[in-house]
């Protein structure tokens, strides 16, 4: 069965959802099992449309829940196909049980998560609560800051995940609405170049290999379970990071677009650093440039690879900085922010001790304004001048009512 190729302009005006859907088409995904949820719906809807219009050769499986969606993906991946899906928020919450199955079974599924707040109260807008919900699920996790990232990282994720030395599933995060529904110029790759980059899917231990029957999803108790988890963690810690660097380098050769696990902006001589994820990275970069004009040595670090956590690269990026604001876009539920804890953990046993302050912001789609970030850089400079963190360690930005801070 032949399928049609699509002529793309060099630069298309796409939102993050359409960019991800186009990437799934160009990678010629074999199976998408999906249950639609705002704001990720157009990704799987897009794949279904491409399939209906004969632009992709594959199967779209309509299921009754997100739990079933990932379960269908697991079955298809174990059978030996290239598999992807998308979800958000409550859907991801229902899917979480199966995420651990997918990574433990070492199935290279690609999941686009369009980040959205978790109820209650019910909210369809972007924050990173769902991103953090599957933080420890054993998946490789990328973060797009824009539609271009959502497009490019899909190809990169397939290439990393499907490598027979890796065989771990990947999540590509993008911000709900701010990325997923905001159209921007996306520099495209031709159908042939994109498919050649990802390559033909190479099955491994697939159930459709009838000469070598396998049982997937076995049970282990105290005698074997620990060894399986140790192997998975070891591969995440040791093998994935070099593979990602290799794929980033090959992607740069193809497209000229350079990705890094830790994206540094004006960090060479920076005293002040804002550390954040998602669309906030681009806003922070703009403000950092403006703060430079005012004489503050401002920089931005954005996290491109959330898992495996790029421990060494984080230390390298922050070693000469005097103060770091770590922004967490999720309610931390009775603790310092997740990223605050991780950065503090990375730096603690080093000789470097920049002043770390944590900020909770943007919950349920609340804007992080440029004015917020100007205040933030000024506060970091105040900390540097005082030689200590002058505020409490955890502050809330942009919430109405009396100032909220802890620790």
């Amino acid at each position: 069965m032949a399928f049609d190729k699509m002529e793309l302009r060099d630069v298309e005006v796409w939102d993050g959802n359409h960019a991800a859907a186009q990437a799934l088409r160009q990678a010629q995904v074999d199976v998408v099992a999906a249950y639609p949820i705002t704001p990720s719906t157009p990704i799987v809807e897009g794949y279904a449309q491409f399939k209906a219009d004969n632009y992709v050769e594959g199967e779209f499986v309509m299921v009754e829940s997100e739990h079933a969606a990932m379960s269908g993906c697991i079955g298809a991946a174990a059978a030996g196909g290239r598999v992807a899906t998308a979800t958000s928020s409550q859907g991801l919450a229902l899917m979480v049980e199966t995420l651990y199955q997918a990574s433990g079974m070492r199935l290279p599924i690609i999941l686009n998560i369009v980040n959205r707040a978790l109820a209650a109260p019910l909210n369809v807008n972007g924050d990173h609560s769902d991103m953090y919900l599957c933080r420890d699920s054993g998946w490789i996790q990328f973060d797009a800051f824009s539609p271009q990232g959502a497009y490019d990282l899909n190809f990169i994720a397939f290439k990393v995940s499907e490598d027979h030395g890796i065989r771990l599933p990947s999540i590509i995060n993008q911000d709900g609405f701010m990325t997923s529904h905001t159209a921007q110029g996306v520099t495209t790759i031709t159908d042939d170049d994109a498919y050649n980059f990802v390559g033909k899917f190479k099955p491994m231990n697939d159930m459709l290999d009838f000469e070598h029957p396998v049982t997937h999803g076995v049970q282990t108790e105290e005698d074997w379970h620990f060894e399986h988890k140790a192997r998975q963690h070891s591969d995440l810690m040791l093998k994935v990071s070099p593979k990602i660097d290799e794929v980033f380098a090959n992607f740069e050769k193809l497209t000229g677009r350079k990705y890094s696990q830790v994206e540094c902006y004006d960090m060479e001589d920076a005293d002040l650093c804002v550390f954040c994820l998602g669309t906030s990275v681009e806003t922070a970069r703009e403000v950092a440039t403006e703060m430079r004009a005012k004489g503050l040595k401002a920089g931005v670090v954005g996290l491109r690879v959330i898992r495996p956590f790029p421990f060494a690269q984080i230390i390298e990026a922050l070693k000469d900085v005097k103060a770091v604001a770590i922004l967490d876009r999720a309610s931390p539920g009775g603790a310092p922010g997740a990223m605050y804890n991780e950065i503090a953990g990375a730096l603690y046993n080093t000789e470097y001790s920049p002043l770390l302050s944590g900020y909770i912001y943007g919950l349920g789609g609340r804007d992080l304004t440029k004015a917020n970030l100007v205040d933030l850089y000024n506060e970091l400079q105040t900390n540097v001048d005082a030689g200590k963190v002058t505020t409490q360690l955890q502050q809330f930005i942009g919430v109405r009512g009396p100032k909220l801070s802890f620790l």
Partner: protein
Amino acid sequence: MAKKGWDEFEIGAMLRSFDGSIDDIAGTRQEDRTYSENNSYKASVADWRLIKPVFNKDYCIDCQFCWIYCPDVSIIARDKKMIGIDMDHCKGCGICVEVCPTNPKSLLMFPEQAEDEAEIASWPKKDEEEA
């Protein structure tokens, strides 16, 4: 099975059924198949059985009902003759006894510790009323 370290087995929650590749597995008898050490065929998975079926061939008519109904493929039949029970895989569910049509039954359930020969020697007689 030797207890391997975390770096000594294939990745994934995945087990191979056979060593090497297979061909015509349906036409190959279980004892002739190249089952891997991981296959449950090589393991006893019957240690929680409390009652067991005992087979009395004197009454068996080789109807194959037990072979068809056994949910654990534990009835051993060759050339359509019932020859015994795979006690490493039988869970003692009693379905074989339930479906056995002979009078008296050719399969009956006994406590796990019962002696097969003694039970066969004192096998129930034909039930005349039922006949």
